[in-house]
């Protein structure tokens, strides 16, 4: 196989030259170089495919099974915490007046306490080996213990004072303030920030996967074209050098290469589309609505506190206004103006309610659930205004906002479920697209190399 012996023998044969059977450039080393180049390019293409597919898979894991669910778990935690606080404030507001409503609030408080414990455990489990998150969750656990104790003290004081609705004595209000401040100033922000931290993890995983798939698409395309060119080059070389127009093995190798190039590009593209759907249409909107859900419950708590604590009523009205602006922005100086603008901009029935930004309006789509949620939100703001004007007993005023809030909460859940469904479908489709792909790639590599070398093997034998 050494160069000096084989080359002169072929080129010096006048008959072979005259019959044009042997192309002057044909030689085993040249053949091998071309075959090795083709196989290397094929290997590069398939490796790039495998790397991009693995990156996509990692991102799907983070988005669909780690940080994604953690976002849900931490918003559940926020909601349960905030609603527990709403029940405590409700019990303190009602006093001895409305035993039915008080009984319902007590039952709900007990239910929320169970949910808080479950959500804390779930969040702790999902935090895995993320130390910062675990520390935060442990802080929430400890502070929640303090909250329960402060709430119990306020409820005990209320029981001893036995007052009618809306007449909570100062020591009860003061005891509740301590609990409420702990809730709004520590527990809720900690859980809300945990949600955002996990949303950051999702975004980072998504961006990373996007970059890798983009790079993967390009490398696969370039390497695939080089592999094809190398196979064709080899084919031409054989045709010219040995007078065979088609080499069956190489034809199969070329076809398989084309097939994998096409499939690979299509799978990566489908993967990218599925991830984009899951992230942008599903996750981002679901996250926005989950945050809307949390903020809305805190807004309801502000309503109960407004009734309970006269001295701080102004501040609870202002924090409620802030939350309303965060849910759906309207340029307004106060709640009355806000409701007027809201009524004006949503009175026309367009496909989606006009939005000027906000956690609630960012989740709007052209679905029926969207208008139901928008109308329920408006009804809640109207009920809020009626509650502030103050006709009827405190229990009645609270009951009307509670009813409006419950209706709104249900509508919001329905809208959020639509986005969650899009999110889950996106993750499922993404996972389906790359399932088995990882297994098929090594098999493809082996078969392509085999076809290439069996294609040149008979020609190599001619030199012996």
């Amino acid at each position: 196989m050494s160069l000096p012996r084989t080359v002169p023998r072929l080129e010096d044969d006048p008959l072979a030259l005259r019959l044009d059977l042997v192309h002057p450039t044909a030689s085993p080393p040249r053949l091998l170089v071309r075959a090795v180049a083709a196989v290397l390019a094929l290997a590069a293409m398939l490796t790039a495919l495998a790397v991009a597919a693995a990156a996509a898979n990692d991102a799907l894991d983070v988005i669909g099974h780690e940080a994604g669910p953690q976002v849900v778990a931490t918003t559940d935690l926020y909601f349960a915490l905030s609603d527990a606080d709403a029940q405590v404030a409700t019990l303190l507001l009602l006093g001895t007046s409305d035993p039915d409503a008080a009984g319902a609030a007590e039952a709900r408080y007990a239910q929320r306490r169970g949910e808080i414990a479950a959500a804390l455990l779930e969040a702790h489990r999902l935090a895995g080996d993320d130390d910062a998150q675990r520390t935060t969750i442990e802080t929430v656990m400890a502070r929640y213990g303090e909250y329960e104790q402060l709430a119990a003290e306020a409820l005990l004081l209320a029981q001893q004072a036995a007052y009618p609705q809306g007449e909570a004595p100062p020591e009860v209000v003061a005891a509740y303030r301590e609990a409420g401040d702990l809730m709004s100033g520590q527990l809720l922000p900690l859980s809300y920030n945990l949600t955002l931290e996990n949303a950051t993890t999702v975004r980072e995983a998504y961006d990373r996967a996007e970059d890798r798939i983009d790079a993967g698409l390009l490398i696969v395309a370039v390497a695939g074209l080089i592999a094809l060119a190398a196979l064709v080059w080899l084919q031409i070389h054989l045709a010219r050098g040995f007078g065979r127009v088609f080499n069956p093995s190489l034809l199969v190798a070329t076809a398989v290469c084309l097939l994998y190039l096409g499939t690979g590009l299509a799978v990566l593209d489908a993967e990218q589309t599925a991830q984009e759907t899951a992230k942008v249409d599903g996750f981002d909107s679901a996250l926005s609505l989950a945050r809307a859900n949390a903020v809305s419950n805190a807004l309801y708590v502000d309503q109960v506190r407004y009734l309970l604590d006269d001295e701080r009523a102004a501040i609870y009205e202002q924090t409620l206004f802030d939350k309303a602006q965060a849910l759906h922005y309207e340029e307004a100086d106060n709640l009355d103006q806000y409701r007027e603008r809201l009524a004006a901009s949503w009175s026309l029935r367009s496909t989606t309610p006009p939005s000027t930004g906000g956690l609630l309006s960012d989740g709007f789509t052209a679905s029926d659930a969207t208008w139901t949620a928008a109308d329920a939100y408006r009804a809640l703001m109207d009920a809020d205004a009626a509650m502030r004007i103050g006709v009827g007993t405190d229990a009645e005023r609270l009951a009307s906002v509670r009813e409006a809030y419950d209706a709104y909460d249900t509508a919001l859940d329905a809208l959020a479920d639509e986005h969650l469904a899009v999110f889950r479908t996106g993750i499922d489709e993404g996972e389906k697209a790359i399932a088995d792909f990882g297994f098929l790639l090594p098999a493809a590599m082996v078969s392509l190399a085999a076809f290439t070398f069996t294609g040149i093997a008979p020609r190599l034998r001619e030199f012996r």
Partner: protein
Amino acid sequence: MRRTAPLLAAALALPLAAAGCTADDQSILDADVLRIAIQTDQPLIGWENEDGEYEGYDVDTARYIADHLGKEIEWVPVLTADRETVLLEDRADLTIASFSITQERKRDIDFAGPYAIAHQDLLVRAGDTEIASIADITGRRLCSTRGSNVSERINLEHGVSSVPVLAEDAIQCLEMLIDGRVDVIATDDRILAGLAWQSNGAARLVGAGYSEERLGIGMQPGDTAGCEAINRAITAMYADGTAELLMQQWFAPAGMDLSSIPIPQYEGCE
């Protein structure tokens, strides 16, 4: 093989070049130096001391964040009115200057944080016991610095009408309060704490806390990763006790109630 080698090299280099082109908007994380806009005329918050050094709660917050991100600081002193423009005109990367997050401002710039929760409060003469809440300023003379329209806002937002008396700045307000030309100053409790501290006991913080302000870190729009990194720095600042330490250091001597220091709930980075 000699001819394929450059091709392969080119194939490998292409995606790198492409990745470079698709990079997001500029991020503060890419720079070594952060240009941070601060106030230099707000005692306890951001001001220049006798030695010509900047100090105060906001200045320390800026230092903590820059340190956490591993960046050097280039200070950009700003007036209250320029806090937004320095960002829009690319003269600063961050504004840490008693800057309240509002939905209006969020339309032009982004906010990381909040890094602190402040309350609107009232400052009165030490001997004045009539004013205990926002409702008590009805008909009283309220100091209004140029362009702040504080009286009008209180009327609009809380339905309390006071008599506005114009002054140049907060320092003049304090002088007018002490010599009796106005009865009350209304603004961010941290600013009032600074004035109370400057008055040497002649003025008193009421503790009425009639409105909550979320103080954010102004950013040029579009830098999601930078915003998230700052939020992580703020989380660390609260988790390691620095935030509480700074509050105690700067505001406790001025008589601010620090019994429960709230943890800020982030706005979120879009």
